[in-house]
């Protein structure tokens, strides 16, 4: 479980930065884009983009591969899927709980009205 949370920490830390989110969103549309293509829309220099790619790579969110002189970047789905699943568990916990809370309170309300119409 410790590793699981370390991975979540890395995933969330990587996602905090808007440039890195933009890179991931771009890869979602265009998986396998080259580093040069990825860098083009940003007002920052290539080395800065490379640094962001390093963070995403260290977090396991992307994989880079080199073909000739071109480095292409692909999304690696597992860590994001785990982050989404982790948030989903909270959602399930509370939607389930609040459904029953509503049913219980409504039952109490009905009884209160019966006792004191």
């Amino acid at each position, binding site marked *: 479980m410790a590793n699981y949370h370390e991975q979540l920490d890395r995933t*969330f830390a990587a996602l905090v930065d808007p440039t890195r989110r933009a890179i991931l*969103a771009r890869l979602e549309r265009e998986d396998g884009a080259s580093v040069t293509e990825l860098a083009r829309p940003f007002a920052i220099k290539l080395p800065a983009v490379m640094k962001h790619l390093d963070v995403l790579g260290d977090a396991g969110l992307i994989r880079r591969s080199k073909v000739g002189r071109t480095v292409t970047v692909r999304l690696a789905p597992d860590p*994001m899927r*785990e982050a989404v699943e982790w948030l989903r568990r909270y959602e399930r916990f509370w939607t389930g709980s609040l459904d029953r809370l*509503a049913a*219980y309170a409504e039952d109490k309300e009905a009884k209160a009205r019966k006792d004191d119409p």
Partner: protein
Amino acid sequence: MTSLTIVRKIAARPSIVFDAITTPEGIAHWWGPDAGPVLLAETDVRVGGRYRVRFRMLDGTEHESSGEYREVAKPERLAMTWRWAGGAEDPGESLVEIDLRAVAEGTELSFTHSRLHDEETRRGHLDGWNGALDKLERYFNKSKGDHHDHP
């Protein structure tokens, strides 16, 4: 997106909803993600007072969370810290805020569970997180292959 917000309309007056949320008897009826039983519920409903709830899920696993009441304004608002008991599984302390507003149907309940992850994330710029995550989620659902299951 390290916070979760749920809004619900409940056909009961705010004071009844507030009691259901804060009394051990009330908590025993609803706390937990499925129909498994609440095993223990303790509350000391005042600012600085603590609560502790333990429940069993239908799959047999038991979970416990506890925390401290930060704001208690019956019947409108309740804020409390939240922490899972469980060593390495513990992702730190988070915050639960519940606002109850009287409406024609009864109560509008606004529920927020925030600061769900580490300090660094919390301090970061979370704007836009939602949209980015949603899009990525679509992608990952598309390419869903193996199944991940964590307790």
